[in-house]
């Protein structure tokens, strides 16, 4: 028997680190630098990462009276989320406002919030009880709401937080109503019990309604159309390092949740949700890409692109068997790598105060700081989905899965969409590659810290490894899918 505490070991580590950072921040002199706290948080998240890896040596099983389940599935997403948070923290250490500026005070809270948010996201991937799901989701959401509004000096920061918060809570209410309906239909909130009881549920219409309501909530969290309206505003207003985090980690967790709901709770409704995913995927990618074409602000553009990516990801759900789970796992990993990477560079190059915000502002980056510009090109190429980068294989697996599930038209729509997407990614890429207009003074990076270097390095390495040698990650995703299938019996 494995002691229960081992099943939530990464979360425990994260919580302890979060409290540590928080307390340290409160007890430090107001004017002293908070950078060390960032490093403490980073080391803590690394420890959690190690703990997650260590968890893979445990036999799969549940803990805390069947509320959490650790197996290859949870480990895969745990590692991914911890990795993202680690990179986001490293990135934040250097790109937050400089020491001594008033905005720098209490930055320790910022790190603590990131770490605490990771607790929720991690737990979301291992929860098999809807109550835990709900609370974990809220933990991750609330910390992101706050982080989104962290830049209070501009009007946009609070506005972003506000929009995110209101729409997020709205969606949560739907999710919650769905959970209530499931509970009403089966009398339980445990995922596996629900799945076994659903065929004999008291009322099948309730099940359908519950499904619909829960989908509203989850599709909002993954920012799929038509529940995507919050994304561009929030991404534009939030600090860039936070966007690096919130465009990836909560989404990864939400996709894990989506898998859990679709395959764990509602496998019965497979004939219903498959076409639904088809439509949502098609709409998301089309809407996201078409809207992105018209954007001038880089962060908005990437926000719309993330909607499109959610669409590509959802396309995988039209597959059959365990393939979709593996494909989604791999896609989230690759997406995380390249998206974190590009936002990391945006925040390093654009600065915390966003000196550069529009596409044309990025002209000449390749000349003023060749390395940063070159890596931006790499990430953009990966986002386009050019081979030998992670983005290609991500799309490849997602679409292969959809193809095998018989969704050929969706694949075609998806690939044509990636053609459209290439246009706006390339617009940014070419802007980076062109010499700056002579009037604008080309300013290089003021100083690139160790944190940013590490963050970008990790992201770039991950993008290339996933593009050239994706075997290991793919195997991990497959074993995650297998173990998920074993747990939920399909």
């Amino acid at each position, binding site marked *: 028997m494995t002691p229960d505490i081992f099943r939530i070991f990464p979360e425990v580590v994260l919580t302890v680190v979060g409290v540590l950072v928080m307390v340290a921040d409160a007890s430090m002199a107001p004017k002293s630098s908070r950078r060390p706290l960032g490093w403490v948080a980073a080391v803590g998240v690394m420890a959690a990462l190690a703990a997650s890896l260590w968890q893979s040596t445990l036999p799969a099983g549940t803990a805390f009276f069947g509320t959490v389940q650790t197996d290859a599935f949870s480990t895969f997403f745990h590692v991914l989320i911890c990795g993202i948070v680690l990179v986001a923290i490293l990135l934040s250490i250097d790109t937050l406002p400089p020491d001594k500026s008033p905005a720098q005070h209490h930055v320790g809270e910022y790190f603590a919030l990131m770490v605490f948010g990771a607790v929720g996201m991690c737990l979301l991937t291992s929860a098999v009880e809807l109550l835990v799901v709900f609370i974990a989701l809220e933990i991750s959401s609330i910390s992101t709401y706050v982080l989104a509004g962290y830049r209070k000096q501009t009007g946009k920061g609070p506005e972003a937080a506000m929009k995110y918060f209101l729409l997020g809570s709205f969606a949560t209410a739907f999710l919650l109503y769905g959970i209530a309906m499931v509970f009403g239909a089966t009398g339980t909130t445990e995922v596996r019990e629900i799945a076994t009881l659903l065929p004999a549920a008291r009322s099948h219409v309730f099940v359908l309604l519950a499904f619909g309501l829960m989908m509203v909530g989850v599709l909002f969290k993954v920012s799929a159309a038509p529940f995507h309206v919050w994304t561009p505003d929030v991404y534009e207003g939030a600090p860039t390092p936070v966007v690096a985090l919130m465009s990836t980690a909560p989404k990864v967790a939400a996709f894990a949740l989506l898998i859990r709901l679709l395959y764990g709770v509602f496998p019965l409704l497979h004939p219903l949700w498959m076409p639904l995913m088809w439509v949502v995927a098609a709409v998301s990618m089309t809407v996201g890409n078409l809207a992105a074409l018209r954007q001038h602000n880089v962060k908005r553009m990437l926000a719309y692109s993330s909607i499109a990516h959610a669409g590509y990801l959802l396309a995988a759900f039209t597959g059959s068997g365990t393939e979709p789970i593996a494909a989604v796992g791999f896609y989230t990993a690759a997406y995380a790598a390249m998206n974190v990477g590009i936002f990391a560079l945006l925040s390093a190059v654009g600065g915390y105060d966003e000196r550069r915000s529009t596409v044309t502002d990025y002209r000449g980056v*390749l*000349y003023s700081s*060749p390395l940063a510009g*070159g890596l931006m*090109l790499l990430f953009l*190429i990966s986002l*386009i989905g*050019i*081979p*030998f980068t992670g983005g*290609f294989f991500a799309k*490849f*697996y997602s*679409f*292969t899965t959809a*193809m*095998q599930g018989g969704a*050929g038209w969706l*694949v*075609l729509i998806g*690939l*044509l969409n*990636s*053609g*459209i997407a*290439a*246009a706006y990614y*390339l*617009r940014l*890429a*070419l*802007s980076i*590659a*062109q*010499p700056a207009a002579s009037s604008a003074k080309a300013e290089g990076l003021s100083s690139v810290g160790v944190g940013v270097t590490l963050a970008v390095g990790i992201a770039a390495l991950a993008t290339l490894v996933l593009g050239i040698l*994706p*075997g290991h990650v*793919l195997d991990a995703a*497959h074993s995650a899918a297998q173990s998920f299938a074993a747990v939920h019996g399909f």
Partner: protein
Amino acid sequence: MDNVILSLILLVPLAGAALVLLLPERGKIPAWIALLDSLFTFACTLHLPAHFVSGRGGFQFEENVLWLSHPRISYHLGVDGLSLWLVVLVGLLAPVGVLASWKSIQKNTKAFYSLFLLQQTAMVGVFVSLDLMLYYGFWELSLIPIAILTAMFGRNLSEASATKAALRFFLYTFIPSAPLLVALLWLYAHTGSFDYAALQAAIASGSLPGWQLGWVSVAFLLAFAVKVPVLGMHGWLADTFSEAPVAIAMIAAGKLGLYSLIRFHVELFPALAREAAPWMIGLAVAGILYGAMLALVQRDFWKLLSYATLSSLSFCTLGIYGFTLSGMNGALLQTVNEGLIGAALFLMLGVLYDSARSCQIASFGGAAHRAPRLAALFVIASLAMIGLPLLNGFVGEFLVLSGTFTGVGKGWATAAALGVILSAAYMLRLIQKIFLGEAETNSPRIRDLSWQETCTVGVLAMIMLAMGVMPTLWTSTMEPALQGVTQRFLTVDQAPVSAAYGAVTSASTGEPR
């Protein structure tokens, strides 16, 4: 050696690119590294024809390593007569490209040469990949350096037009590759393999659902036709030719698309390709005439060159879809020729443009006096392009025309021949306007070729001559592969084609066959 040579050819430019990135951008260091690297690559490519067993069908120098087990993708490389000379051509053009950029690229040489070498890898990769997914990877990868270099080193002063050209090129070629990938995935979903031979066998067996397979072949065709480009899909060509740096423009068109058409459309879907043939022939002939006529009236020599290229590439397309051995032979030969001649012309026009900062034909005149070497070599290249006997263009064009005449129809062949005549008209007009006549008083200063440029173009000219005199050196290696292609579905009588082929080879070499 034989079993790693292809990897070597692939990786040496890549390593060179990395080396360029790592070393400081001081003086000519990147350029020298790129030159040495590309020369070494060229040497490696020469290993291929030296050790190629020409009589044997099938692929040689094969390498096959499992890359991913699920989905099953292999690192499967190999060359046959079809791709052999194209690989060598790419190897040859690389140092030519470096030398062509020697003077014109002064800033950001690191970025330029590393991307240039990356492009090199991608192109070789396209020619040697035998796994369709790997092929697709290189195919897509080849778009990136061209787009970025066009944007970075646009020849015109306005960045907007460079961006537009780069975007146009990229989207034109990237969007059709989406259906291509869908088609690949469809094939994988039905056969469980991306391997070329396996897919060929599966398609030949006829077990795949028919109408969908038709769409798959159309997707393949579309992607390649844009890259060639075939008439109607050539929207990117003129822009890219006007904007892209010389070294990039000379490799952007032709080879990749034509090779892919033969290998992955005609060879992979023989029956379906035949159904598409009438359309392609029509487009090709129209393209020949359209390109030639537009070339006649251009005032801008880049535009002229782009329409001329369209015309001559359409010639190749015609040869391929004529489905005759001689036609295909000619097309393949012509593809190589196109690469050589185009490179030479681009290089020389690039010199003209760089020294004069003008691409208006009318602003030159009497340049032959001031740049005699340039003029002489330009005339040679132009004549090769026109198809003068004893130069390489002649052999290719003749083979294509005779193949069309026998295999397709007399009317088509006549129309195509008209294109040859027109090509003579516009090339001679170009020579006349630029090099002959009196120098105008306010004509721009132009310089002659430097010694390395002279050497480069001289070498190219020598090769043209050699290919025109002894085409059998090349065709002997190409023929078995093309016979493999044609044997399976050639329905027209073999004899007259062979006779025509024999006649032309003996005529051009003066030896009885």
